[in-house]
């Protein structure tokens, strides 16, 4: 579990740590995030970034083709607007869940005309690992795993922006992260280093479902 101030420290430190590292499969899930505060209220900051995805074709040939994910770096916005029709834009957020006291992964997904995708289409995009939802039951508003307490994926208001989003239910991520942190053992980290490691591990846990790197 993280407190709100710990979350803020971890997120800001993450942005700084990966601002200038070279992109690689290991660093892309951690790169490209920027920190945003609410215009008038403190304590509502969140991370966001934008990624580009494609739909899975029904008759996929090769995993390499299925996984085309590119970064829309800020400096080449001109090329990003010229992407082909099949391109999907995903706005990703790491927000703080005040209820579960852990980070939560929120996102929206639009086609190139700006129309949001239906959930049935979202689960068939390169945003998710192909087998991520094998046992899930799909409705128009959620993705449920039988016998689970919460839907794996459901819609809700973005905690800071208040806009409709999809989110992965955060309640089980903290346990997994704490287990990974125990594996890492007690290193001689400063508080901030420890918190960055925590959020890095959390992103790793999320990336078992979400494709966060190229």
């Amino acid at each position, binding site marked *: 579990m993280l407190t709100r101030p710990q979350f803020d420290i971890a997120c800001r430190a993450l942005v700084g740590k990966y601002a200038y590292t070279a992109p690689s499969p290991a660093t892309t899930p951690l790169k490209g995030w920027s920190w945003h505060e609410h215009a008038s209220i403190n304590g*509502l900051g969140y991370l966001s970034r934008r990624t580009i995805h494609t739909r899975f074709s029904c008759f996929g040939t090769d995993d390499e083709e299925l996984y085309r994910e590119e970064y829309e770096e800020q400096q080449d916005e001109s090329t990003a607007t010229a992407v082909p029709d099949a391109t999907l834009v995903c706005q990703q957020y790491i927000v703080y869940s005040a209820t579960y006291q852990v980070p939560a992964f929120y996102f929206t997904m639009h086609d190139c005309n700006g129309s949001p995708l239906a959930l049935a289409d979202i689960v068939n995009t390169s945003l998710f690992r192909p087998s991520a939802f094998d046992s899930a039951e799909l409705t128009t508003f959620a993705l449920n795993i039988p016998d689970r307490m919460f*839907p794996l994926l459901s819609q809700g208001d973005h905690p800071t922006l208040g806009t409709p989003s999809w989110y992965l239910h955060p309640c089980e991520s903290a346990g997994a992260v704490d287990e990974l942190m125990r594996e890492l053992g007690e290193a001689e980290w400063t508080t901030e280093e420890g918190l960055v490691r925590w959020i890095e591990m959390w992103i790793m846990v999320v990336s078992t479902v979400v494709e966060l790197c190229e």
Partner: protein
Amino acid sequence: MSTYGTTRHHHSPAAQVFSARERVTDYHTTLFRRLIWDGTVPLEIRVDTKELPANSDRGLESYFIQAPRASYLPLLMPEIRRFFTDLVFDETSAKDLKDDDWWFDTPDGTLLKWHWPIGLIYDNYTISTSVKNPTFLPSSTVSPLRLMLHLASPPQDKLLLSPSVEACKQAFMGQLKEADFIRWGNTKRITGLRKQDQDGIWEGIKEHNFDDFWRIASKVTPTSAPNRTQSPGPPSSAASMHARPPSAEPSGSSDREGAYNVRSVPVRLYLPDGPVIQDLVPPLLEDGTPHTLSRYLSMHVPLLFPPRPPAPPPSRTNPNPQPPLVPQLAYALIQGVVTPLESEMAWLGACMAGADGWVNVCVGINNG
């Protein structure tokens, strides 16, 4: 004295575990729950004349309804649809209209979130009007909230998709579980309910049946426990108490389940046209005194609720000095009631929470 959950006894092993929790709810808690449950708000619904299908009867385009605060817009849809189908739309065009495409806004363009309880929608509109309209007073006017019903093309970037009853049920159950987690650090109380009870709690909302709803909800909602005989432990130790079955300590079980023993009260703070603020709200402060609404508000919005300075020291001329008055810039609206600031947060959690378990504090601005 009113009781909940004692009229039916089940004999499955699961039911036996929970029978220990079927407890007598004190009279005052029941009274407030009943008052909250019976709260309604007036709505005036009209279809945008530009969107009325051809051959509609334009003389009857308004529908008035007194809607339960605890209900949701998707639950009103069948009734609204029946009115407009019977009296306004012609038969052919009514067939082509899909409820899932219907959405509401107010004349000033505020979109209505279908997954919010109707009472919260009303209160939230009240506080946003308090900023826009300086002559507005919250308690002096009970005017209908005027809603515009749109029949197609919901703004998908602003409203959640698919406003069906099923989606609404899931949103409601999600809130109920979150409230449970906030209180105890886990959701064992809700997950411990049998499937019929989990469904039954939603049926209670759908049918707006107080007894059906509270027969189950009282198993998961703390009591206000006004007759507390011993000082409850600090909130941190309360979080670990849930692991022990309540039957292990029969005499103390109702206290253990009491509103003052929760880890945190499920509270959300709504500001006019602002974001929703949520934080941990312990029922007791570090010195063991109850956490009050006044303290909560001056912590989160100190500019609107300035902390009251301490009283000056007593003197011979003024042996009982009162703390200086601070201007009342804003007020707190809970379930449509302007709530006294000395209210204790734990009590609000037990008696003034919505059916989904959340205390929604809407802050309005005093004018003049």
